[in-house]
């Protein structure tokens, strides 16, 4: 059975695929990752993770139209599947849930509710 949990890097990549939408291909995703996180990452490692996410069923991909700027070579555009989206939501909800139990936040909540 395939592992269906999301790693941190995987999660970020999934999100980036969603953000980039039509432009979600390995090079762009790697650049966007660098811009957003400030960390350098090789295209190869992004590609390999995308490939893994595809195996898990979180992503699908298809080849785009050829463009002139890269010697007429086509890009592989990734898009999120319904399962992928659900996995992202689950991961977010899980974390929000945890944050809500975090003492300070919980206290603040109590304060807001007017209970001491």
């Amino acid at each position, binding site marked *: 059975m395939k592992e269906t949990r999301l790693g941190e890097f995987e999660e970020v990549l999934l999100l980036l695929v969603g953000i980039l939408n039509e432009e979600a291909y390995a090079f762009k995703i790697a650049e966007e990752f660098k811009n957003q996180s400030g960390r350098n990452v*090789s295209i*190869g*490692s992004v*590609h390999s993770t995308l490939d893994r996410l595809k195996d898990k069923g979180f992503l699908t991909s298809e080849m785009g139209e050829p463009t002139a700027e*890269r*010697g007429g*070579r086509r*890009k592989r555009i990734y898009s999120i599947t319904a399962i992928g989206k659900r996995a992202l939501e689950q991961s977010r909800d899980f974390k929000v849930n945890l944050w809500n139990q975090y003492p300070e936040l919980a206290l603040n909540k109590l304060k807001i509710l007017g209970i001491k």
Partner: protein
Amino acid sequence: MSIQGNIPPKLAQKLLQWFLKDELLEEVTGDLEEKFELDQETYSLSKARRNYWFQVINYIRPFAIKRSKNSITMMKIGIISSFFKVGYRNLLRHKSFSLINVSGLALGLICFLFIFLWVREEMSVDSFHSKSENLYVIYRNQDADGSVQSSFSTPMRWNNGYHIVVDDMEEAIPEVKNKAYYATGYELPWGYPKTFRYGDKKFKLEGSRASEDFFKVFDYQVIAGDQETPLSDVSSMAISRKMAILFFNSPEEAIGQTLNYEDKYDFQVTAVFEDVTDRSSLQFQYLINWESQMKRLEWSSDQVLTTIELQDGADPQIVAAKLDNYLQSRLDENEDFEDHIGLYPFDQKYLHSTFVNGIPADGLISYMKIFSWVGVFILLVASINFMNLTTARSIKRAKEVAMRKVVGSNKLYLIGQFLCESILIAAVAMVLALGAVALLLPIFNSSLNKSISFPMLDYQFWTICVGLIVLVGFVAGSYPALYLSSLRPIQSLKGLIRISKSSIWFRKGLVVFQFSVSIVLLVVTIFITRQTDYLRSKNLGYDRENIISFRVEGTINSSYEVFKNRLLSMPGIAALDRGSEEPQAMGFEVSKPINWQGKDHEVGFKPSSVGYDYLDLMGLEVVEGRGFSKAHPSDSGAFMINEAAVKQMAIDNPVGKWISAWDKRGKIIGVLKDFHSSSLHEPIKPVILDVKEDLYFGVVIVKTKSGQTEEALASLENIYKEMNPNFPLDYKFMDAAYNNMYQTEMVMGKLSNISALLAIVISCLGLFGLAMFTAEQRTKEIGIRKVLGATVNQLIGLFSKDFLLLVMVAFLVALPLSWYLMKQWLESYAYHVDLSWWVFAVAGLASLLVAFGTISFQSVKVALSNPVKSLRAE
């Protein structure tokens, strides 16, 4: 979007195509190309290329690699790790063999790594300037009647003061972006460390002069003061951090302060620069502005080094041609010599300092090449050891190989097994070698006068180390791997294995090769040592023992008589006089200003002025006529010449004829026996001497009583301090100054000594291993021989004969090669030792003896062993 059609590195693309799955190729090459172009825009082409490699290598991941049945990439990790495990066990099982293998290889690697570090250090000289690619120096060829004088300098002409002829080249030639003049202030022929004074601090320091844009053209970093043009004013100077701290405690405090120069001029510190590194061929503690150089300071030579920064993309050859045209258009057509200039890359100047046919061609670079080859050869000798031992041992492992084959191993796996083993050994040797290099580096540095640091964080170095492991592993492991994997299992299991004739010949050939290399190196090192000894001990025609010298400066000239007489009465001083140069460093040569009775051709003379007692003091011999003497009042207008001068002037009976130097004319009163007035690379040149005891420059030469150097120095310092208080005393011993001229030779001597020693040791290690192996093989044979009555001596002879024959063959191979090499090298000296035959004989005999000694360890042991023991088994 694509910039000038720059494409990613071809090799990386090939690699990608080779390993990447076909279905991924299109998208991946597309992605990487986009990345490449982005990098190129944001950074630079070279960074983009490097990053492309990085990206390609990062695609070597399981998901992206081609699947194919026969490919080695498919070999399971398990198999490879088992290779290493078995290899490791094998290493441990055969401890003595492993020890010989590893230590031989490690020695070879140590030698190689040291040579590599040294060569890389020298290669990197002057490459630190960021504009390095656009920096070119002017070199000059002066052609007078067919005799060409070449140098890295710039033509100058006299017109109310000296001018650089192509001074305004930026205006005439648009490709010239910037230029910097540089003139040394301390090198030969007349340079010396200058005295600086601030308050009561006074120091002698070596520095130079440079033009306004010097700091723009070069990357000598200004750490305080004017960053742009600190040398624009006639009273400005820039000093190093060290000098700033010496006088003013810190670089910041130095700015704006005034330093007194040679008790003559005041200079204001306008900038402090970072201390100049060893990786710079220009060395200076301070820089004085150019206006002072041209108008008021004394020159240390008439050579100005001009460095030009070209515009990006300018073709240096075209610019050089334009420059030369420009020069010709500005020269007087009636001059009786031709002056031409050319351009040479600035960062290559250091390695190519010798001119061949008017072009910088030779120099340190040839030593680099020679020693690179030595490094490669020694590594080869070490690899051969390894190859030889492993092959020799093959019989021991034949059964193992056969078993593996029977069980189902294929040839590829067996080759892999043996290669892994040899790579393992190479890796162990490399680790040892690196440790040894790190430990020995300080000794290496101090003996070569370098400051190389261990390149801990240098990825290029580590890549090379890993590359070496793989390369040596492959080279050394390939033959045994191929040989062993092709053994037929049935025969080996039956114990029928016979070593083929060709493989025996191959191994013998390897031993011959090893010893040839060793013998060549041995011959080379003997000759270099002999030549260096010869240079140091050669009778130069004058005394250089117990002689110290220091410059005439400050009040020394004006109070010379008093100074001389007072010193002569002090303890330890035997004699004292003055001259315009030291006799071993006469660098100045002229031909035009010297005329003589019946002159019909030009002769290049070295002119020098001396005191009356100079000839006696230095022990110069007069062969005809007489020396200068105060008893003849007319001697102040007289001249002496040397034998070489008589010969080249082509005159008979020179004594009594007139000769003139510049506007001074007088009689030749005597002829000096030839003495060496410069390095022994050069033949003795004509010399002309006259008497001048009132020159404001020159040197004072003091002869001390032998064994009383300390007293003499104490006397000297006392009197000097009292009579010349504004200048610190800076004396040198003439024999040390002389030896300094042969720095390169001494370095080469040391390097070649070590290389030869290592080569011999490595070869002997190999021989030792082979002998050990043969002894094991022949235990029974020798046992039987012994039983049948062979004596110990006969057995030793029998055993050694084969090996010694190989060494003799090696000698015959090495003989012509080393003879040719040494002939070439020695001919670069005008004065050199003979190419004596006995050196070759000694080298041959020595290697024979060492080889015999090595083998004896085994042969004696074998010959003395009890035959009962060796025959009992079975």
